[in-house]
């Protein structure tokens, strides 16, 4: 017994009331699991809409069917779908489109989802260059990395920033706060 280093014992693990022994999943809102192939199928449908020129429909569709319950791969696929839509919409169309979504039923929720994707997109340095590793933090979203110049990241970042500006104008700082404290991550 004398060899035991008492300081390294995790006393919390021995306490039945300790936070370590909680089932943390009960603290988060329930999400339905989605497989990566389903997300892939959805991406195909949305691309179809996009090709047909229905940008608003595509964005709406992508934000309404956000795969909270998907694994990392599925979430990655959906992120790329959303980024593709965002990049295909012209700057002058952003504000009218956002305010139309905001005024519709459940629109504020959709814009919160969009805000999540903007932050997630910004945390990727090269969003169009496939899945690069990112640094997820305990909060569920990643810090903005400094831009690596010379790749497509700079251009994508400027798209995110202009969307972000327009989005805050319409949905307010409340939307940013919701991204930070929402336990359902994209």
């Amino acid at each position, binding site marked *: 017994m004398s060899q035991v280093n008492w300081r390294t014992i995790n006393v919390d693990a021995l306490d039945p009331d300790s936070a370590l022994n909680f089932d943390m999943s009960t603290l988060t809102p329930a999400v339905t699991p989605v497989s990566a192939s389903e997300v892939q199928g959805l991406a195909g449908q949305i691309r179809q809409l996009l090709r047909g020129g229905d940008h608003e429909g595509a964005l709406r569709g992508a934000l309404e069917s956000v795969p909270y319950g998907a694994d990392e791969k599925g979430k990655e696929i959906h992120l790329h779908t959303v980024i593709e839509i965002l990049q295909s919409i012209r700057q002058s169309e952003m504000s009218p489109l956002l305010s139309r979504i905001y005024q519709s039923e459940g629109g504020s929720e959709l814009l919160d989802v969009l805000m999540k994707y903007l932050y997630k997109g910004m945390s990727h340095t090269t969003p169009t260059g496939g899945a690069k590793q990112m640094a997820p933090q305990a909060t569920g979203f990643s810090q903005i990395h400094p831009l690596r110049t010379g790749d497509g990241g700079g251009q994508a970042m400027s798209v995110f920033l202009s969307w972000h500006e327009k989005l805050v104008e319409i949905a307010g700082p409340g939307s940013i706060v919701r991204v930070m*404290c929402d336990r359902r991550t994209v």
Partner: protein
Amino acid sequence: MAQPEIHHLFHRPIADHSFSSDRQTLAVARDNLIEIYGKSGQKFALQDELRGHDKTVTGVDIAPNSGRIVTCSQDRNAYVWEPSSSGWKPTLVLLRINRAATCVRWCPSESKFAVGSGARVIAVCYFEEENDWWVSKHLKKPIRSTITSVAWHPNSVLLAAGSTDGHARVFSSFIKGVDERPAPSVWGERLPFNTVCGEYLNSTAGWVHGCEFSPSGDALAFVSHDSSITVVYPTGPDMEPKAVLSVATQLLPFMGLIWTSENEIIAAGYDCAAYRLRGDEQGWQLAGSVESAGRPGMDSHREESALNMFKQMDLKGKVQDDTKLKTVHQNTITTIRSYAGSPERVRQFSTSGVDGRVVIWSV
């Protein structure tokens, strides 16, 4: 619309404030002590200091009828202060918690008070005659994290608590020998101690900052860090609530709220202003700021004479002093309380915040 009554007490954060029932005495929590202010004319003057806590005081509440003050602090203690001929006499309360106490409120009957804590328990404290001592019983299950706020139902048995685990819960704090059996309500009929009468989570599961029962006690509203306010209308015990209405605002998060009537809520927080919400079981909407309703003199500091403008430019190298907010409070509002009127129709309310101001507003 009457002008708000502004009392700038000091340049330190006010963790909590409470008025006596005659509104002549004001107690504020300032750092490690509680300052008692007395009204003299239009102002509040410092009268007394309650010393005893050795860490930041987090909650203070004056019982309206008995005049007793209860305080709690990060030093894990709570005191009940009773007025006596030689000043305020403190009595230590046995909280039995191993983390900071975060909030405290007297129940309407004043026979009990509830202390929320970081130890994932709520200590419901009552006076034990035999031992001449304030003792506590713990509400434990199913709290998973720090309690940020407690609020009492008008029947003094039901207690609402908001927590950083994202849940707003309604508990029974029935203590035999202290409480009378409550009348059956939408929250339940038989209510032994630690009955969980309701457990609510909003869509984002953001941590809850404040919660409050409606004047009738048949609805519960809570504000959380996702800038939303959620109103719950329960149907009955073990049934799904009639309506859970969530309003996601464009604003920064709210810290606290009060019901001014069954159909109106006032909430305030990080936006440094109080906002009005109106609604019923069908739905709730944000109805604007309490402040913006034409406060005269609000623009006066912006319309400056040419002389003044050049003087400012010369002095500071800029035209306007943009370090001042346009709101009355210059920092986050942390506490909001009813000031005048009945619970069913609050006419005035008071707010205090990080800027050291206590402001009395007309609804």
